[in-house]
């Protein structure tokens, strides 16, 4: 590889695809960034070539080899419906799209590395079992939700692909849900509701990944991937109740069988979406993953831990709140004489 790196991003029209391209453009070692998607990148990119193509189309088999890329990053896996990608196409984009993309990779002799931005949903949200899943525990629990099954299926394809092409460095990133100032995701919208419905009697442990670390880890994996799956998550964990206190939102506990339907009803109206995927189980049982492989083997140290990510989100919070309701906490603060 005499010249610089040629990196192809599938799904450049997503938030993470665009963010990665922005960061790659600043890397001196990168010669060319190319992006495939049906929708254009979300920001103006200076030295990125945008190829308008659907990863589900057979055209890909000719397009990918023609780019002569040495690294393919698949950032097009969808957690929830996005503009231009409604609910009914999620399965197609996630599973069929990945399959097509991997088939196209087989015909690209220049390719050396494949990185997929997958999801920690593969572990499920389980009340029992390990509190911190390591990468080898993916098959410990049944896949319960539609999204989990999709992720399970595409991980299956990917590990088969990696086995058949041992000369390629194939890296599967398992992301915890992201949060961050300015990141418009259903979980962020949920946490920004004026009154946040929760599940009565449950207080899940969460690991929400700061958006900056989400991009940082993707960049680190793109530049120097390691083989096999890697959990991408902050260190530590935070309970939902404490997160809501830090964000300064009152909770409204609902009996848990009502939570899913209530959120489906209310969510769209309040702009929180229907919390697609495993979010209902996530907000009941929580999920923690072990990030040692990310820190020690991939060499990416997250800047925010689980509490730090929530604090940063709270600091930049512009969501709706009940302004007229005086916080009990602030009244108590004044009584205790801590506020002068």
């Amino acid at each position, binding site marked *: 590889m005499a010249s610089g790196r040629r990196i192809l991003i599938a799904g450049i029209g997503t938030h993470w695809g665009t963010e990665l391209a922005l960061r790659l453009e600043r890397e001196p070692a990168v010669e060319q960034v190319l992006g495939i998607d049906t929708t254009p990148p979300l920001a103006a990119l200076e030295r990125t070539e945008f190829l308008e193509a659907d990863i589900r189309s057979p055209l890909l088999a000719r397009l990918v080899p023609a780019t002569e890329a040495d690294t393919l990053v698949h950032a097009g896996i969808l957690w929830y419906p996005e503009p231009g990608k409604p609910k009914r196409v999620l399965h197609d984009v996630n599973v069929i799209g990945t399959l097509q993309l991997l088939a196209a990779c087989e015909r690209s002799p220049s390719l050396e590395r494949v990185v997929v931005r997958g999801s920690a949903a593969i572990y499920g949200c389980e009340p029992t079992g*390990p509190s911190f899943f390591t990468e080898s525990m993916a098959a410990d629990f049944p896949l319960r939700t539609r999204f989990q099954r999709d992720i399970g299926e595409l991980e299956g394809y990917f590990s088969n692909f990696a086995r058949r092409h041992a000369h390629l460095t194939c890296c599967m990133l398992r992301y915890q849900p992201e949060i961050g100032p300015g990141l418009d995701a259903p979980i962020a919208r949920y946490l920004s509701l004026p009154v946040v419905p929760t599940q009565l009697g449950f*207080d899940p*442990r969460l690991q929400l990944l700061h958006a900056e670390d989400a991009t940082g880890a993707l960049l680190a994996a793109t530049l120097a991937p390691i083989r096999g799956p890697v959990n991408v998550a902050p260190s530590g964990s935070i*309970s939902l109740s404490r997160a809501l206190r*830090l964000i300064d939102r009152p909770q409204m506990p609902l009996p848990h069988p009502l939570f899913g339907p209530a959120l489906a009803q209310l969510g769209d109206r309040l702009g929180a979406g229907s919390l697609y995927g495993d979010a209902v189980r996530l907000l009941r049982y929580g999920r923690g993953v072990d990030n040692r492989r990310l820190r020690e083997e991939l060499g990416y140290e997250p800047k925010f831990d689980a509490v730090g990510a929530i604090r940063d989100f709270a600091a930049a919070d512009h969501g709706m709140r009940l302004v007229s309701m005086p916080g009990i906490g602030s*009244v108590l*603060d004044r009584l205790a004489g801590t506020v002068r």
Partner: protein
Amino acid sequence: MSAAAESASIPEIGVRFLRSVRSAVDGGADPVTAAEAASADLPKSLRDAIERMARRLRGEYHEDEWGFDEEFAEAAYPFFELLYDQWWRVEAEGAGNVPAHGRAMLVANHAGALFPFDASMITGAIMKEHPLPRWPRFMVLDWAFSLPFLSAFMRKVGGVPASPHNATRILEDDGLMMVFPEGVKGTGKPFADRYRLQRFGRGGFVEVALRTRSPIVPIAVVGSEEIYPKIADSSLLARAIGAPYAPITPTFPWLGLLGLIPLPSKWRIEFCEPIDVGHLGPDAADDRQLVFEISEQVRETIQQKLYENLVKRGSAFI
């Protein structure tokens, strides 16, 4: 004035506080400002409590990565202390055998059909009797973590779902890990079988101790069997609620919620000499024969100490 407030009784403080708020509100202040001014005269301990409450409401408290909330555990502690001192009159022996620092695995017998209190009483014994106390973590039956309220409570006071991965991680972080190898077999056995140790699973706890080179501290708990004497079992009810078993005691379910009150048996807890397995090396965990031998050694130690302490205790209730 403030010195007077310190010595005043609670009702007097309350009356003085409300009187001062009322006079300020009569003077045209809004209630919160009035209360703020009046609170300057409250005793320091009360103001500290208010401040702590306000701080917790802002989310400014510490939780570790398992969800253990030390302040919460300390707040719940007096209730368990009451049970420890007054209800079960626990006598603990050898708490000093728990290492003051570094990792250790605490292995105890398990009993208490409806709700096993042994983990909380062992914790109490460590907190009260140990010269350098620290909060142990305890393995909780998986099923409890699928239940509302109980799951959140257990996590805040140091419970973790029973899994060898969790035990390994806690021991690697140099914590105290309390395990009950009998599991449901221990809590679900009939009253007639009390203090007869059940099978110690597959010896998984020994494997974890060997891999993490943690000393094993066997603990014998006497008294826990009498708190809910299980006289029968309702498999129908168990299946209906998804529980591993549904016990029937002389009081439960006949007396409803009152049946949940444990009987005031007399308890003894003995911490035995630690069994050091560190010199065997982590690879010894793959030696099944050795794992079973150590498991059996721990089991016999606890069984023998159970009999000794049963004799020392004498009558079960008085």
